[in-house]
């Protein structure tokens, strides 16, 4: 709990809410706060979240109280044996957030996957192209408004 309070106090302007449901400590951020907060989480010796366990997104289509997308990252600190979940709110109309691949190189592929599946763009990513689907694929498959039975013509090699 003390980490959550620490982050909340230090970054009042960015933190939307915090909770520790099911024992998973969670911080919800405005997307403007991505770089300062993640840099702090990684470099502050008392936190030292050096391992990016996972980065993904969730599409909350149709909710009105908060923006549509949440980019969810799970951090782990090898030194302190502690986990933290950071959720970044990304609105549909401005579907872009700062890339954290400069902090954890692991984010490179995860961000490509989020772009591929959810269409959230990452500012400052070195090579933002689709990871799992092919370049010509239309739309983003894990969005809630992408029908599960939708078919697209499969295309052969480009060259």
């Amino acid at each position, binding site marked *: 709990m003390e980490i959550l309070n620490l982050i909340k106090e230090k970054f009042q302007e960015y933190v939307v809410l915090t909770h520790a*449901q*099911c024992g998973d400590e969670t911080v919800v951020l405005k997307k403007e706060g991505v770089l300062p907060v993640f840099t702090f989480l990684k470099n502050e010796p008392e936190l030292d979240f050096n391992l*990016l366990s*996972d980065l*993904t997104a969730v599409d909350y289509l149709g909710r009105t109280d908060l923006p549509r997308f949440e980019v969810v990252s*799970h951090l782990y600190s090898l030194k302190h044996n502690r986990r933290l*979940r950071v959720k970044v709110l990304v609105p549909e109309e401005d579907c872009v957030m700062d890339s954290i691949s400069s902090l954890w190189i692991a984010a490179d592929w995860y961000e490509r996957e989020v772009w591929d599946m959810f269409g959230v763009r990452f500012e400052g990513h070195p090579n933002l192209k689709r990871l*799992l689907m092919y370049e010509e694929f239309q739309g983003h498959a894990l969005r809630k408004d992408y029908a*599960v039975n939708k078919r697209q013509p499969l295309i052969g090699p480009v060259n």
Partner: protein
Amino acid sequence: MMETKDKVTETRHMLLNVGPSHPAMHGVIRLVFELDGETILKTDVEIGYLHRGFEKMCEQGQYNHAIPYTDRLNYVSPLINNFAYCQAVEKLMGLQITERCKYIRVIMSEISRVTDHLTCIGASAMELGAFSVFLYMIKAREYLYELVEAVTGARLTVSYGRVGGVKADLPEGFSDKTRKTLQEVRKVVAEVDKLLSRNRIFIDRMKDVGIISKEDAIAYGITGPFLRSTGVNFDVRKAQPYLVYDRMNFEVPVGTHGDNLDRYYVRLEEMEQSMRIVEQALDQIPPGPVLIDEAGRPVQLSENKPIKAADMVDEAKMGRIRGIAERPVQLDPTLQGSTKGFHENINVENKKVVLPAKESTYGNIEGLMNHFKLVMFGHGIKPPKGEAYFAAEGANGELGFYVVSDGTDKPYRVRVHPPCLPIMAALPILFEGDMMADMIPTFGSVNMIAGELDR
């Protein structure tokens, strides 16, 4: 007269495409190498050829409907995926599973870990020409698959985990059979150790090849045997123990160089540690229902004569229900170990989560309604609104499931963190500076499983 001219030889880097369908690729993946002679300068990794939309499909059904899909993630150790998913949902619901179920999950997970490592070492040794090692290890894996088959009814697509429990209890004589099998596997591992660990050809191919530093491995988010081979002592089973791993006495092997040879040693030692865990778990597991008497004859759990399930349903339809609720049901062999007597040992006591024992479904209206309430759309397991991330130690590293619930009976989002994805992302630096032929042992030690990589 001819004039001699200095000939300038033009040198260019060559692009070499390997895959997506290539015998040395352990699945469908495409690598594009930029070569200077035979030295690899750059690698471009292209994945996604086996993408089946796992996460999208999980959102379409109920919570238990995702379990068969998890079998097909890491198909070399599907049981670990089953249990990790179930535990993520259980964490979300705050369910406490029974002691016996915890032990069953530990035993089956560790057996799966051994099968996974056997496959990885065997396949990568085969690619270096050690074909007998491959055959020996697959033989040992076959013994373990027989155990898995005895418990789950299937070798590969096991679907054995259930939210709140497992499908069925362990079969009769499982403990003795497992101990015997582990001795056989130990023999094979010792044999392979003799064949490879001091083999000049093997060591020359593996040592100082595919090196990754501790810092790079952490930066790429790599976990599991791969991270441990670089010297980082991180194992989810030790760091954040789940199930009953805190009661087990086992070591975490750690390497020093982070090269292929260290990864081989780490995996070899991990198999022994996993087998130790299985043996300890078999000693500690709380006894299930007594199945055989002292003379070794099977014991009826009920005094009444068993009735075939179909007959029971027919009787009940006719209204001849007197006494059938008490009679044990003779079920299809695939349902063995999930009837009354077993059911309460391996499943949580929560009617909103676990299907009733089959006797109840066939024999009384409460059980029947309970069953239907759970399998009908809109009425199944309904975790409270919220989210949970559960990390288990898969055979390749941290296997994480992130489950989001919106309070309905369908998962709002299921995300699996595949342990070999970060390793694949790090392939370019693993290959960089090595020879083209070194790509084979390095790629073998990555133990890429396309099923979980592409999902």
